[in-house]
């Protein structure tokens, strides 16, 4: 099982945003390994959420922990069957502990897709 969390610049807090989060923390429960990787969505011109979600699909992530998510990213994650849980206001690693203890709930509200601007 691979769990991803949108990470803030300081690499320890959960990012308040998904698509343009600075990093993802990817935790693999099999080897109990953690990896911090750059989020390619962070530097996207547009469609940052889509790029970030596409990245997680290609990283074979099974679960995403985040505060919020847009509809575009949601459709990419859904198509890959990735489950999305609402992160709590604690550090990223503490959120993994909460998830493993079954204490997080599924994210059930999503931001309307902005879908590009001028």
């Amino acid at each position, binding site marked *: 099982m691979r769990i991803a969390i949108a990470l803030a610049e300081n690499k320890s807090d959960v990012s308040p945003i998904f698509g343009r989060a600075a990093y993802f923390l990817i935790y693999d429960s099999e080897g109990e390994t953690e990896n911090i990787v750059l989020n390619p969505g962070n530097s996207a011109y547009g469609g940052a959420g889509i790029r970030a979600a*596409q990245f997680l699909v290609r990283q074979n992530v099974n679960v995403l922990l985040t505060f919020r998510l847009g509809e575009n990213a949601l459709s990419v994650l859904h198509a890959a069957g990735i489950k999305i849980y609402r992160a709590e206001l604690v550090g990223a690693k503490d959120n993994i502990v909460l998830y493993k203890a079954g204490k997080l709930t599924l994210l059930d509200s999503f931001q309307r897709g902005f879908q590009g601007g001028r």
Partner: protein
Amino acid sequence: MKVALISGKGGTGKTFIATNLARLFNNALYVDADVEEPNGSLFLNAPLLETQAVYKHLPYISAKKCIKCYRCVDFCAFNALALSKECILLFPTLCHDCHGCAAVCPQGALSYMKKEIGHLERRQVKETTVLSGVLNVGEASGTILLEKLNELIKAETRPVIIDAPPGSGCSVMAAIEEADICLAIVEPTAFGFANFKTIYALTQALGKRLAVVVNKVYGEFKELERFLQAQNLPCLTGIPLRKDIALKTAKAELVLDDASCLGYFEEIQRKLLRLSR
């Protein structure tokens, strides 16, 4: 002469000045390039003569031919495509119609479908032609409509007055492409001045000539005057903040029949012609 009226923010009076100026020119082509909310034809009222649909092309991927190599997904700078397990996802409003995805596909799996994103409208009031771009509600980008308008502007020999959208983004850049002079409509306030500086930077970056009309003048705003002087930017006129002008404009009426207003537009016209010589 091809002049584009621009402003860093909305509501400074681009349409007010562009439509009155178009009427004054008598034989001008007025182009409403504010395709998200084109309202110039309300001022230059005339029967609609012709409409022309404008399309964009959306990629369509054949699931049979696709080998899931991600080349199209990685190529798209706007992330309009995604590949999620067995699903190929297209986000139509993000697509910029560049056809790059088809060019990089090793399988020839991409074809295109046409989607109407808006239309052009042509009206005629005596010698004045009114051309409006109309973007469909829900579309994210009107740049393709502006490219169509630009083709027509390019071929035009009469004076052209382009009523640009507000701001300093992609649509403004597209709207001023064919203009040989930009006319910034500026409000003499701190907010108006701050917005003006963004379009000043834009016209500098694109190498466009810039002149200014100050609209809704009341009292003095020294900072703007000093800036125009320092940058050597011609100020063609200042139109005062007047309730009667606002009322007429709110009713989509022109103000040229008012002798006290006519002078401002004649001054703009005279100076524009001199500048574009």
